[in-house]
């Protein structure tokens, strides 16, 4: 719902703090709401806090699903007027 963005954890800092990166921009955030985060993990960031770890495997599955749906449509000869 609210503005949240997937970011990559680049450094774990003192306490619950962590340094994250998105597109080359770095920001310090709090990991107080999540557990077991390692450098290299992706988390969903909202108002300065990580809300959840992003499941990379599920992300790939979802993207594959999109592509499959699209391919089915193309194979069936359906092209929307975009």
């Amino acid at each position: 719902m609210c503005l949240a963005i997937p970011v990559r954890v680049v450094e774990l800092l003192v306490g619950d703090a962590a340094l994250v990166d998105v597109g080359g921009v770095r920001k310090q955030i709090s990991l107080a709401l999540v557990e077991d985060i390692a450098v290299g993990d992706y988390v969903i960031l909202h108002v300065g806090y990580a809300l959840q770890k992003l499941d990379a495997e599920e992300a790939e599955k979802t993207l594959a699903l999109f592509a499959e749906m699209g391919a089915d449509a193309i194979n069936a000869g359906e092209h929307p007027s975009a």
Partner: protein
Amino acid sequence: MKYIDEFRDGGVASGLAGAISRLADPARGYNIMEFCGGHTHAIARYGIADLLPPNIRLVHGPGCPVCVLPIGRIDSAIGLALDLQRGAVAQRPSVILATYADCLRVPAAAGLSLQKAKARGADVRMIYSSSDALKLAQENPQRQVVFFAIGFETTTPPTAVAILEAQRLGLSNFSVFCNHVLTPPAIAAILDAPAASGAVQLDGFIGPAHVSTVIGSRPYEPFADRYRKPVVIAGFEPLDVMQAILMLVRQLNQGRAEVENEFTRAVTREGNLKAQALVAEVFELRERFEWRGLGVLPHSALRIKPSYAAFDAERRFGIAYKSVPDHKACECGAILRGVKRPQECKVFGSVCTPENPIGSCMVSAEGACAAHYTYGRFKDLAA
């Protein structure tokens, strides 16, 4: 940007649009409510409606916490920032009101908003995170810092963390004006509302993205079970939204009413238990709370527990709530419930514009009216 760009791919969008077209039964209509303000914004910004067949209608719901905040609550925040600023009450230090940017321009009573109050001398500070409010309190020990906390379940855990941290630090000048609200009661209110004449019958819901990372997919199951409406939780990006629409169309065609999760990369059935526990530690349910547009709903909002009373601004400053009715011509209520479209409000685009908003649907970038005005109104004129 990883996990963002791939989910905005235009080529894949064409494919999905084709799949939706093929699946949608031309003999019926599909009325889908997207509940989350972020989805409203994404749909408008990417022009998703352009890619859907005409018999799929997207109805905007009340998932924008700024839009549903009643005028009376903003008045209370403005009152806090102004009165004490004038030192009207002896021995109380003046207030710094810390707020998210989204609230600054919401119109309240007497033509005021937090931004206008700031112009009159109130110390209103825009912050990005609840931790910024804590910092303000630490840096200004002689002032009272009040954090104007709004938001659905996504934004509540950060407030909980701030309160717990304030307690740990022993801060005596930090308090929270709590306006956190809950998603399932709002969905229930939509579904429970008696059918208004001319209103669309909703077939299904696109469930909010980030609220669901916190609460999980389980809380939506009663809507599928009891009301027989399918719910598909969708991620934040436009491809997620399209995929969710596809899944809803498929469910409706097959006569199913289940909770499905498109946003599997961040949402599980149980949600974020750690965040839920932190919220349960600090907050409890209010018996009733007024929502702009939806009226008074039971057990739909949170207040700070007595054990954390020291950080409750309502207690500290004796804030009494006064219900303030919307402007007579304002149709925000009907629009928030999905009963009317922005174009159907008499003041839309003329008296009520993003520059001079009458109601909250026009203030927040995700309000249905603001989104339509900013991104879509050219289609009304062309029609």
